[in-house]
């Protein structure tokens, strides 16, 4: 009986350890902190750091978009939260927006971030009810970023300079 228990324990613990080894090689974490974050995600114990998220929002409202994104990166190091990724994309949009010209590099980064947010919220439409924002859904934000990256005849319309940043 004891022998069977020992074998059973050996099998379960070996499979768990082997799974952890395969997971490490598949996910390629670069630091021990990333290993810890990944382990928390895998165990279902991962949570966004709300204090850092709010600090990022404060910076966002003061139009300090780069530092805001840094703060959100620290709040959601595994990039698993759709709401945080939506804000990251929004920060790229606001920073890249210009009355005469949009920054394609920032818009492209924003598009990647909003696509990631959409992928994370595939179960339900992503909606953020923040009165500070002009666009409340990820789909709207994506359309805005996509339109900014596309050159069309409308770009040469002088009335375009009267458009407001959302």
């Amino acid at each position: 009986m004891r022998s069977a228990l020992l074998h059973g324990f050996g099998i379960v613990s070996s499979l768990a350890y082997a799974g952890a080894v395969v997971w490490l090689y598949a996910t390629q974490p670069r630091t021990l902190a990333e290993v810890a974050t990944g382990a928390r995600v895998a165990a279902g114990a991962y949570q966004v750091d709300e204090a850092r998220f709010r600090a990022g929002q404060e910076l966002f409202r003061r139009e300090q978009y780069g530092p805001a994104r840094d703060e959100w990166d620290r709040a959601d190091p595994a990039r698993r939260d759709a709401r945080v990724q939506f804000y990251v994309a929004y920060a790229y949009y606001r920073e890249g927006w210009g009355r005469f010209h949009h920054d394609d590099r920032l818009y492209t980064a924003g598009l990647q971030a909003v696509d990631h947010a959409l992928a994370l919220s595939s179960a339900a439409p992503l909606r953020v009810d923040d009165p500070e924002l002009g666009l409340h859904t990820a789909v709207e934000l994506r359309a805005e970023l996509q339109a900014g990256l596309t050159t069309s005849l409308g770009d040469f319309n002088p009335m375009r300079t009267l458009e407001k940043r959302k």
Partner: protein
Amino acid sequence: MRDEQERVRLRRQAARVVLLPWLLLTVALLGGLRVAARDRSLLFLPPPLVTLVLAALLAALFVRARLVLPGRWLGSHLTVLQNVSHALTLLALFFASAQAFNSVLPEAGLLHWIFALFFLWTLWNDQFAPFDPRRLLRSLAVLFATAFVLKHLLLSGLAPGPEGGGWSRRLVGALLEGVTLGTIDVPAYAAATGYLSFFTLALFVGALALVRPSPEDQPAALAIVEATPVRDELGF
């Protein structure tokens, strides 16, 4: 007395069923781990294909040297749990072997293939040499120690450093004056990589020392003795 024997038997079994797979899996984990010199970040390098070939040759050597007797490890005389447990241990042994080679193989370039050929040639020759488990262990310890010294002590110095390279780079540069080192492509890793590799190889050889030809305790050996009558000699 019987209790004491039972405890010893359970301890031995725990070492083979739990400790041995864990040691082998730790080797499999650390064998591909490198620490980048630039930013001290971790790099997990999966085993290249050639290390799987080397591990297969080493597995054949384990069987030939009777370090592992496949018929005793797996078979219908064992329970399902025992078979599964032993199969997992053998699988872990295979991947630990592959990762032990990965640990001492240069990652790229001409040196990768020179080392791989050196291992292939040695293991192929060993297939035809008479080995017992103890000799095989000694031979493997020497093989890995040699490769470790070559890679982590001599060749790691060839990697370009902040001051243009280590002492072995300058030495090789002086010896091969005019010959390009372009084909000797040695990636720069932090010193921690060498320590990790040393620990991994020590663990691998230590784990091999725990491997027994038969993983389960065998009943006391039975000897068939042919008895000849001695009545006449005794004068009966």
